[in-house]
């Protein structure tokens, strides 16, 4: 019994974080943001130069799973800032009452819509799109409907755990309204698998497990700029492309409220925004001083952009999720 107590105690010690001298700001984000090749390391280095603190990114799956993770821990969480929700989740996140106003009103955002949400602050945006390899797909579809009619294999993300997956739900709903069920019926036999997050899906596409992957119009810029590979492209769809605006907010129960404010302020400054295009491969929320990097001009620009307000998105999400689950589980 003594051994038993001893090893339980040991386990408890091992799970407790080691005490730090500098204050630690914990930011919960999605996997690809915190990864070695994402914005995480550069943002950490840049912010730590100014804050006399330690910035700690904790990755927890894809964007939509972040919200569930915060609810799982409730007010006891060590997390100070959540970075990586989007407009489709804002209503649900606000309803948890776990987040607090940012109080930042003087930023000149380069967003396609006016931003006035008091709790959530945008850090980047983009258009969802299906990305393919020009060498294997010679005749890409020009709409969600024609994609469903083709025999192309696609990988998408689960709308319950991933913001792109949720984005596709919104895309279908906002473009097709009452006909959204038909579109999903059409897509259903094209789907190889539904992944938990964007990273998994994009990895599968790059490994050749599918012809197209749900990603962003900006994804080909990564291959062009970072890998000097012009073979990837995003298919332009006639019905328009749904937009994503990615946001962050601080938690009401944060034990580092000043540092959290400082971080949010940093997030909309040039130091953070200039890192975004070539690490997160999205459009920055505020145009950096040097403008967009070369290569971004080669990207497609949707003739029509679709987006729901936070409240519309909340309704569309419940309805769309039920429909999606019913059709895809058959």
């Amino acid at each position: 019994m003594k051994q038993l107590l001893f090893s339980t105690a040991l386990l408890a010690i091992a799970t407790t974080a080691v005490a730090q001298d500098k204050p630690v700001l914990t930011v919960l984000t999605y996997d690809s943001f915190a990864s070695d090749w994402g914005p995480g390391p550069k943002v950490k280095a840049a912010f730590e130069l100014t804050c006399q603190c330690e910035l700690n990114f904790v990755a927890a799956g894809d964007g939509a799973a972040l919200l569930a993770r915060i609810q799982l821990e409730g007010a006891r969480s060590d997390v100070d800032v959540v970075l990586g929700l989007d407009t489709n989740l804002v209503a649900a996140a606000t309803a948890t009452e776990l987040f607090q106003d940012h109080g930042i009103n003087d930023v000149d955002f380069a967003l396609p819509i006016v931003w006035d949400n008091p709790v959530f602050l945008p850090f980047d945006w983009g258009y969802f799109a299906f990305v393919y390899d020009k060498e294997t797909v010679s005749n890409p579809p020009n709409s969600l409907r024609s994609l469903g009619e083709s025999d192309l294999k696609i990988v998408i993300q689960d709308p319950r755990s991933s913001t792109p997956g949720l984005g596709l739900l919104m895309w279908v709903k906002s473009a097709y309204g009452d006909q959204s069920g038909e579109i999903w019926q059409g897509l259903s036999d094209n789907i190889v698998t539904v992944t938990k997050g964007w990273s998994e899906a994009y990895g599968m596409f790059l490994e050749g497990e599918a012809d197209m992957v749900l990603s962003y119009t900006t994804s080909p810029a990564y291959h062009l700029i970072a890998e000097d590979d012009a073979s990837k492209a995003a298919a332009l769809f006639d019905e328009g492309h749904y937009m994503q605006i990615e946001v962050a907010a601080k938690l009401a129960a944060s034990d580092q409220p000043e540092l959290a404010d400082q971080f949010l302020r940093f997030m909309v400054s040039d130091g953070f925004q200039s890192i975004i295009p070539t690490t997160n491969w999205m459009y920055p929320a505020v145009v950096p001083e040097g403008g967009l990097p070369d290569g971004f001009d080669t990207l497609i620009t949707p003739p029509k952009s679709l987006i729901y307000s936070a409240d519309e998105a909340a309704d569309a999400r419940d309805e769309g999720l039920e429909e999606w689950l019913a059709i895809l589980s058959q």
Partner: protein
Amino acid sequence: MAGHSQPVVKFWPGFVAAALLAALTLGTLGAVAVRAEGWGVLGPADWAAIRFTVFQALLSAAISVGVAIPVAKALSRRQFLGRKLLVTLLGAPFILPVIVAVLGLLAVFGRNGIVSVVFGWVGLEPIQIYGLHGVVLAHVFFNLPLATRLILQGWLATPSEQFRLAAALDLSAADLSRVLERPMLRDVLPGAFMVVFVICTTSFAVALALGGGPRATTVELAIYQAFRFGFDLGHAALLALVQFSICAVAAGIMLWVRVPHASGVGLDRTVQRWDARGKVSGTIDAFWISLAAVFLMLPLFMIIARGAPGILDLPAHIVDAAGRSLLVAFTAALLTIGLALPVALGAVGLRRIPWLAGSLEGVGYLAIAASPLVIGTGLFLVLFPIANPVAIALPLTAVVNALMAVPFALRALLPAVAQIEAQYGVLADSLGLLGWQRVRWLQLPRLRRPLGFSAGLAAALSMGDLGVIALFSDPDRTTLPMQMYRLMAGYRMDEAAGVALLLLALSLAIFWIFDRGGRIDADR
């Protein structure tokens, strides 16, 4: 007055352990039931998950048992170099971490795996592993060996005189099958089928890694999704009740059809079969044995081949995760013994009060029908108001892992305790060797083997477990199987293979150390 000299109160540790076990299984189920939404809320996707759970389990059990029949038959009557190794290997999947096997299967059957490459040479499309067939494939990989062992036992239990008699009577193959084989199979197959079925209904890690979206989701996976994706506690609790019902029904059927006992004793010999002398039957047997051997060994070989180059320079966070996993495994092993031993001692010591002994034993076996995710959900509901579940994820994992290993430990300990009591009980009573003294001087020294085996099993199962940790894990403070799953999900397959090899080695080593420890200067 032998047997009455030990009063009921002397067995209080057994009752305490049984109360803890009941709290963890029935108590968490109660918490879940209180919180669950009404049955009416089950949507089409939930029904699809229920159908998929049952269907894939039926299919997995049918294929595992169907293939196991010819393999066991071949093994029962052929002696060849490596037979002993193959039979030993048939016992290995039990302690093989699921996620490691999945990676090995991907390397063989995935889109870039060996089979697809070979298909490509002859102009065939690569195969697709995600979805129903991937899930069933992985389940067959794990359960074909178990089914083979169970059926092999049946074949070897048939007295060789009967085969000799059949040969003397010059029975045809069809007659032999009618008179000897079919009755034996009728006896053994239902039990083997049900064991595999029950194991497959609680599948989580396989469905997590190889499921193909809402179309290939098990109920366990749906619980995880309701929890981690939507934080819909009422729905998670409802699904947990569904999962418990499936397990309870399956376990009920299992009690009803007799389950054969896979002791592993005597599997090293073959039966002399006069009907096996023909060339055709020799070729058929060789085919089945090679098929099973290649199917079981190739994925493991791929893990070793792909993982070996990277194992020496694994990053620090992987080494940390390995340390945490070892700590969880050791804790789980101690907890398992701490729970199972008092229950076993109580159940045997109180055998003169059958209802009491029976209840103790019954509570010990409850965990068979429990699902880790149901317990995890229940624990969360109970603990959430008082603690941050993410901060205590590792102790929770150790507790749930320990609980799941208790039935196996009881199965090893109960007969051993009963034998000691039968041999030395009267003598010990007459010497007044009671309570702790009796445990210390009489039982513990003689229980080293089953204790070592149980602890090893619990530690190895815990080491490779990817279940309840997925509910609460924090990526920075997680276990080795969880880290491995993350690497796989991110398609970093070479790194994942290195971690897989480490995990495999640690699981086998930890089992071996405990099991060996139990055998050192064993009381013979």
